[in-house]
Structure formats: C-alpha cells, structure tokens
C-alpha cells in the first residue's frame, strides 16, 4: 500500500535535508515523551500494569480463534454483520462493495491505521467515492495530499505554520487567525456538513470485545462519534489482533495505551459500539458492518506472536532516534518507526523493505517504553537474519561481513592483517585525527575518526608492555 522501499536512501536524504521536518517532529515527539514520562512516574506500579497487559494480550493471542468466534457470534446477535478478509485487497473490496450497495457518494472516515494498511483511501478514490477525513490531522494531510507520518499524530511532520497555510488555501471559510482555536474552528466548519450528508461512516477499532461483540474506539476529537453515528451505514475495519476476551481487559489495556500515547489518563472519548440502531434508539446506524482483517496476522502468529500484542500507541516512534531523525514518510510503509520496521516486511515483503529493520541502532529504548514489552530489537534482528539468509543484503555488505568474519575467526591471520592495516591507516591522519577515511567516507563525511595506534593492544601485551 506504499511506495516501493528500494529508494529508502533517497527518502532519507530528502527527510534529512528538511529543517522544518526536524522542528515539527521534535515538537510532537518531545511533548509526547515528556508527558508519557510524567504519566509513568505518577503510576504506582507501572511495571506490574505492563506485565498484566502483556498477559491479557498473550491470552487473547493464544486463544485467538476461540475469541474471534465468540466475538463473531456476539456481534451477529447484536445485529452487526461480520465479514472476514484474508488480505488487504479483499478487505478493501468488501468495504467498497458495502459502500456501493448503500448507494453512497460521500464517505466519512475517522482515523484508522488499518485503513492505511489495506490501502483504503486509494481504493475509495478508485471507486469514485468522495472520502472525507474527519480526524483533524487526517484532514490536514488529506488537504496536503499526503499519507500519515505517525500512527497517533498523522500530521506530525507538519508545523502549525504549515497547517495555517493549508487552511488558508483550501478552506471555504478561511480561519480567522492562525492561533490553534481559530484553526480548529475553521476545520470544524469545513467538515460539519459532510458529517450529515455522508451515507457511510468508516472507522477502525482499538479493541474487539469477545464477550459482548462490541468494538471500542478511543479518540479525542469526537469526530469518530460523528463518523459512526449519523450515517446510515457504519463500517468498521479491524485487524484480528484487536481481539480481547472482555470489556474489563479492554479497559485495562486502555489505561496503558492512552498513557503511553499521550500521557493523559484517558482520551476524551472511549466508545463501545455494539450493533446497529435498535427500535426506540434516537440515533445510530441502520447497518453495522465489521470487517475482520487478517493480512499476514496468522503468519505472524507462527513467526512473531509478540508483535500481535501491539496496541499502536506510538511510544516506540516517539522514543526512536531514527524516527526522530527521518520522520515517518521515509519508512515508506503504512506504519513507521520501530513497530513499522517490524510490520512492513510482513505486509510489503522483506525484499522490498529490508532497509527498515537494518536502519536501526538496536539501542533498545523502544522495548523499554513499549506498554506491552514487545522485544522490538529482537524482532528487527530476526528480519536481518532472514534477509541475510535470503541474500537480500547488498553484495558488498555481505561480502565485507563474510571476509571480516573469516579473518576474525583466525587470530593469527587477523593479527597479521591488523599489523599491516594500523600503520597504513595512520598515513591518513593529521594531528591525531583522520578526516577522510578510506572505505568509511560515510563516517568521515560528518565526523572525524581518531588516528589508530602504531600497534594494537594485544601486540603491545605480547611484547610485555604494561601501559
């Protein structure tokens, strides 16, 4: 659903050249990091809550088939219609067919990363349906013709100043000022009419509750309620890993999800949607459809079940030095950051996206902040090993590693090569530093490298040196 990943380096270059991007990312992620840290510090026993959350997800994952069946039965009993989609194409087709069957021309959508994953915006456009993004940040990137660059703040790459320009250009009624309140008011006016003309509203789900057949959405702007309630048809698209056993489990996870994402105790809206409008209800959709999407998830069940715990909180993005340097678009997949680098190879194929798991320092901060303790570095390394074995790595890199490992496994040869290399490298140095390193020009483009010693430590030791 994404641009091909071969040109990762090109996208990275572009991102690194953009000073505005760095400012925008730092505002959003810096804020998120500070607020999360405060929320975690104020939590009496965060580690215990995290362990409990892991257990809740692991239980649901282990019994996924049972709970999905329970969910389906309970959802049907509530009057919902449940559809199963094996992959992205099938999921999009089901949604489009439902839209067409309802005679829709205008479709409102509240933010859903699964929708991005299955390429729904594109599919709706192809089907000739007018898509109205109702989440403020999604509205911004729709105006800009972009894709989300963060899973919680889709417009994290844009500064407030950028957004003011977009609104001035595209809104029918220009914002009265460029302060946040005026801009929000302008977006609200722009979207208002569409909320009530749309025949179909599409949302995602944060949880699928097996014991009730309800779906749960967690949002801040109220746009989800306006997307799911007034239209005649409400379509939910959700990955099957969203399943949890009970409402209580969903609420326990919510506490971690929201604090990890924004640092708040709760979002403004935590809504359970169960079935269509019943006789006597004042509002609600007449048809309520739930599309359950696999798209690689059953494969993950066998290969990396821990990743199915992911709550899509975005904490790993906010704390990732690579994400903060290059932003979400450089990743080229629907999901950026550490979690995206684990997921994109599942969805788009490893050969296409091998750079993502490779472009990581494995510093482990993502795992440290993950509310469900996903071993992201281990999973990224898993992809690296798969990629190396499959021969996807650039020839020069795998050759260099192989040659180096050959020498390192033969200490005598290694010593000889080292004894020759050190004096040779010293020839490049001036005043203790090398400013242009042969075979390491990437390093010395921005950094110096210290002049190596005449002889190695072990060579000195062998000669009886003591310092």
């Amino acid at each position, binding site marked *: 659903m994404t641009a091909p990943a071969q040109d990762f380096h090109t996208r990275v270059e572009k991102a690194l050249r953009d000073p505005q991007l760095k400012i925008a990312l730092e505002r959003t992620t810096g804020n998120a990091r500070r607020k999360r840290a405060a929320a975690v510090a104020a939590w009496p026993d965060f580690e215990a809550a995290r362990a409990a959350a892991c257990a809740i997800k692991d239980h649901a994952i282990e019994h996924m088939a049972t709970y999905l069946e329970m969910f389906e039965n309970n959802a049907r009993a509530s009057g919902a219609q449940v559809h199963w989609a094996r992959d992205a194409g099938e999921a999009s087709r089901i949604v489009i067919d439902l839209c067409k069957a309802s005679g829709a021309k205008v479709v409102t959508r509240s933010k859903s990363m699964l929708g991005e994953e299955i390429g729904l915006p594109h599919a709706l456009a192809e089907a000739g349906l007018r898509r109205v993004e109702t989440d403020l940040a999604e509205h911004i990137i729709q105006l800009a013709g972009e894709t989300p660059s963060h899973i919680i703040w889709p417009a994290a790459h844009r500064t407030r100043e950028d957004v003011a320009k977009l609104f001035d250009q595209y809104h029918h009624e220009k914002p009265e000022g460029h302060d946040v309140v005026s801009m929000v008011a302008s977006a609200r006016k722009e979207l208002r009419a569409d909320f009530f003309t749309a025949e179909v509203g599409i949302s995602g789900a944060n949880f699928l509750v097996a014991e009730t057949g309800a779906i749960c959405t967690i949002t801040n702007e109220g746009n989800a309620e306006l997307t799911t309630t007034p239209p005649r048809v409400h379509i939910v698209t959700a990955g099957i890993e969203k399943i949890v056993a009970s409402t209580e489990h969903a609420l326990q996870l919510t506490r971690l999800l929201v604090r990890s994402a924004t640092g708040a105790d709760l979002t403004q809206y935590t809504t359970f949607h169960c079935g269509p409008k019943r006789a006597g209800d004042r509002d609600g959709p007449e048809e309520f459809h739930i599309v359950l999407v696999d798209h690689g998830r059953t494969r993950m069940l066998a290969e990396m079940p821990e990743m199915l715990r992911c709550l899509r909180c975005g904490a790993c993005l906010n704390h990732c030095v690579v994400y903060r340097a290059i932003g979400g678009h450089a990743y080229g997949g629907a999901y950026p950051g550490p979690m995206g680098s684990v997921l994109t190879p599942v969805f788009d194929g490893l050969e296409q996206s091998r750079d993502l798991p490779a472009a990581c320092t494995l510093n482990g901060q993502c795992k440290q902040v993950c509310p469900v303790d996903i071993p992201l570095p281990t999973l990224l390394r898993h992809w690296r090993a798969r990629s190396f074995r499959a021969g996807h790595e650039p020839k020069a890199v795998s050759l260099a590693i192989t040659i180096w490992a050959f020498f390192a496994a033969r200490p005598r040869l290694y010593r000889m090569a080292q004894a020759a290399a050190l004096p040779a490298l010293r020839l490049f140095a001036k005043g203790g530093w090398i400013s242009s390193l042969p075979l390491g020009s990437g390093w010395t483009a921005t950094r110096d490298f210290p002049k*190596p010693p005449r002889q190695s430590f072990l060579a000195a030791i062998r000669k009886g040196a003591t*310092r």
Partner: protein
Amino acid sequence: MPETGNALEKPRVGLFVTCLVDSIRPNVGFAALALLEAAGCTVEIPLAQTCCGQPAYNSGADDATKPLARAVIETFEPYDYLVAPSGSCAGMIKAHYPELFADDPLWRERAEKLAAKTHELLSFLADLRGFRPRNVLCKATAAYHDSCSGLRELGVKAQPRALLDAVEGLELRPLEGEETCCGFGGTFSVKYSDISAEIVGEKARNVEAAGADLLLGGDLGCLINMAGKLRRDGARTRVFHAAEVLAGMADRAIGEEA
C-alpha cells in the same frame, strides 16, 4: 569448596579487551588491566581473542557469527570471569550468545555458562569487587553518556557514577538525554551514516550544552562516534573511556597526540 573460595578472593579474570580497544585505543585495555588488578583479580589476557562477533550478528549473519562465538567460549571458559570494558560486547556474550545457539543444546549450555560469568568492566568492579579508586586525581568537570547496551541489557547506570564519585577533583555534570542513543550502532554508523550523523549531531549539541571539560562513557564505539563529531564541530570537550579516568591514565584524550 576451597577452590571457589580462593577464586572469589582472588579470582582469575580473563580480560576480553574488545576488537575496538585492541585496534583503536590500547590505553583502555591497559586501564582495564590496572583496575582489575587493583581490585584484587589475577588478570590474564588470552592472545587468541579477536572479536565477539557482534558486527556479524547484528548484520543478520548468524552463520558467520557462530565460529567467533565458539572461539570466545572456548577461550574464556577456563576463567572465573570474563570481563570486557564494553557493555555492548559484554551484552553480546551475556544476552545474545545463548540466543545464537538456541537450536544447539551443547553449545547453548556452554554459552549460558559463559554468559553467567561475563561482566562489563565498570559494573564488575563496583558490584562484584566492591572496588573504589583510591588516590586518583582528576580536576575536571565531566558529563557521562550511558551507552545503550550496557544500560538496557546489563543495567549499568549507577556503577560508573559511584566509581567516578571516588575520583578526587572530578565533578559530574548532568547531560540532557544521557540515556539517548548516540547513533553509533556498530555497522549502522557506516551503512546508514547519514542517519547516524543526524543522531550524533543532536548528541554533540547536548554534550556541548552540558559545558563539561570531559565526556565519559563505558563503550569505545559510542565514544569514538561522539568524539569524532565533537571534533568535527570544533568543540573542545575531551573524550575518555571512564576506565582511563578511574585508573589515573587519562592523559591524552581520544584524538590527542603525544
């Protein structure tokens, strides 16, 4: 068991010096040797050692890593402890060797046994030897960077600070983002040098803002990365491995010639 008792009193430590220290900064190896001896250990330096294999392992080349890991296991098995002046290399041996041999019961067992007695230098000195430097003088202010593997895989955080606290004249200054990765990441710094440069750029700005005379840390890879960036940016911060300061061997900082 008198033997164990003796070992604990004066343990035999195999010093795994790490390939970077060996090739780039021998002074860290000599400092580690001096500190371990001062902490009452009998130190041996097996000459057959090369590299723990981490560059291959993190490149996904598991098959190329295994011979290197087996060699380290064989070489260091006889000692009471394997000690390395690097959280990254110690973490590789402690956390990842057992993973590497997950499907090989024989080697996995040997890897686990070695993992159990493998330690990062500074935490070994502080936690297992109760060591504190004595009569070491270093009149300077210093910022400390917590390298990621040591911090998150091995829990190295308080120990270097406790040790440095005992150095006379040394004053530790807070460093904004001290637990944030410096962008080194081993081969990452070469494969994705532009991203790495961006990350170390932020680190260098924070180090300069800390306004300390010295930047210290426990991992040479990260230190070279930060020192190289600081030097390119024209900063005057001098960079040392913490062991060099603790051993009173901090004469010439990284990149300073005699």
